[in-house]
């Protein structure tokens, strides 16, 4: 069933009786060519591109809960490609280009909204760093614009420009950045994969891997053994505990990142605004709620909830940047579990176990990477070689000293 304006009109006139579930609910088959573990954004995108781009139909996605119930439903929906380093920038720009054509591609309204991402700067040194980053972006063919204080004032006159500690000196704007409806990303990919023959198996938790002579033959699940030609793991947030079942230790710690939504307000923010000095970022959803967040809580956690000191810290940052939000009520807060990798960059690679592949370590930047991550992982699973934009995301970069240390924090995942 394809969605269209005509279909909406027809259903409106016939009592909405023709809508069908967007994907099937199949029982697992005994064997698949490729198994993707994890029905989040990245896992579903992987299955979608495996089917669509690489022509693999005998594929299943295993999800322990339900589609959209993990990190893809727990993020702050921002997309951007404003990176500095060579290992990162082409990859995230590839992702941005896929976002731009996503809805036409999978025939589903994901509400991709390129309303701009503005990073504020507060010191001369920070402005120099942003100028450098903007130039690096432009060298990679990405849009970037350096604004002075007046430029920022024209865009967002309500900001606190005279903050004694962090006066706003300007900002780096990526006009093509923006937000996307995160649930619709999961649903759109699930539907697109399902239409091309992929089995999406929910409520099916992987409890172990069957590995014989160093070769992965399939997985043990709560719904029995499922054999596979290849197994790809894309369970960011749970990478540590899933890969431990395959006997692997990862350069990853799991941390919690909290996010918040205010009550619905009239249109207020022109786009996404980030305030690095005060650890705060904010955008406004289409329903009017301010969606915002700050740093990770800073210690290992699988709790999917944070603690109050970080709530206070984030709200302080928000108040110091936009004093007017002080009277807005906080509607909801929640926590997602982040794979914090040791250099702050992701891993898409094969493992030491033959036919077992890994995709994870997205830190708190996984959402914007969803399409490119799926495409690159599908490329790796289908061809055995890394995608041209993801060649730096290998396990051995730590051993070789080739880390992609975008934030310069080294082997300190709680500082990224």
């Amino acid at each position, binding site marked *: 069933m394809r969605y269209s304006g005509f279909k909406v009109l027809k259903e409106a006139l016939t009592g909405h009786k023709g809508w069908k579930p967007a994907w099937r609910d199949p029982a697992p088959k005994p064997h698949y060519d490729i198994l993707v573990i994890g029905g989040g954004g990245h896992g579903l995108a992987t299955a979608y591109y495996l089917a669509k781009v690489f022509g693999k139909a005998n594929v299943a996605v295993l999800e322990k809960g339900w589609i959209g119930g993990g990190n893809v439903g727990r993020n702050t929906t921002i997309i951007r490609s404003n990176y500095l380093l060579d290992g990162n920038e082409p990859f995230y720009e590839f992702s941005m280009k896929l976002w731009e054509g996503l809805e036409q591609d999978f025939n589903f309204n994901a509400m991709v909204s390129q309303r701009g991402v503005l990073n504020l700067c507060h010191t001369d040194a920070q402005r120099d760093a942003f100028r450098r980053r903007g130039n690096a972006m432009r060298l990679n063919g990405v849009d970037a614009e350096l604004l002075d204080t007046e430029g920022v004032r024209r865009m967002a006159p309500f900001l606190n420009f005279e903050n004694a500690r962090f006066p706003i000196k300007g900002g780096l704007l990526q006009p093509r950045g923006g937000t996307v409806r995160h649930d619709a990303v999961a649903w759109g990919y699930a539907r697109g994969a399902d239409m091309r023959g992929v089995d999406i198996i929910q409520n099916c938790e992987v409890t172990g891997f069957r590995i014989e002579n160093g070769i992965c033959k399939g997985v043990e699940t709560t719904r029995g053994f499922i054999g596979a030609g290849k197994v790809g793991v894309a369970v960011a947030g*749970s990478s*540590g*505990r899933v890969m*431990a079942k395959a006997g692997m*230790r*990862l*350069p*990853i*710690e*799991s941390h919690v990142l909290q996010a918040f939504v205010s009550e619905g307000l009239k249109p207020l923010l022109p786009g996404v605004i980030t305030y690095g000095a005060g650890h705060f970022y904010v955008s406004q959803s289409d329903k009017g709620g301010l969606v915002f967040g700050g740093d990770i809580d*800073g*210690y*290992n*956690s*699988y*709790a999917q909830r944070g*603690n109050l*000191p970080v709530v206070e810290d984030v709200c302080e940052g928000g108040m110091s940047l936009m004093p007017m939000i002080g009277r807005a009520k906080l509607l909801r807060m929640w926590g997602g579990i982040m794979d914090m990798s*040791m250099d702050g960059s992701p891993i898409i690679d094969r493992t030491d176990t033959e036919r077992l592949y890994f995709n994870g370590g997205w830190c708190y930047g996984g959402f914007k990477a969803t399409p490119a991550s799926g495409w690159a992982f599908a490329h790796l699973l289908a061809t055995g070689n890394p995608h041209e934009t993801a060649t730096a995301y290998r396990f051995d970069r*730590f*051993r070789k000293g080739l880390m992609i240390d975008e934030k310069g924090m080294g*082997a*300190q*995942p*709680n500082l990224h």
Partner: protein
Amino acid sequence: MIIPHPLLGPRDSQEFTYLGDASLIERPDWQAEDAVGRFHDYLYLRDNPAGAHRELWFHEQGDRSWLVVTRDTVTHEIISAELARDVARAKGRSK
């Protein structure tokens, strides 16, 4: 979270700075034959368990002691706190 400091009693976790896995106490011998590989594992690889986790907390805004805190990463419950010095000595380190 309240951390039961062995010398000072219950203290707010906000007084502490978090370092990470308590295995960081066990620094490999840099003169060993396989030192490069062992330092890779020591620096970068983690068990990352869901459940009881032993980790290092520095009482930066208190007595500046290092603690080994055992904490449940699923519930945030703190099970125990010991002086890192005692933990290291129990392993035969230093005097």
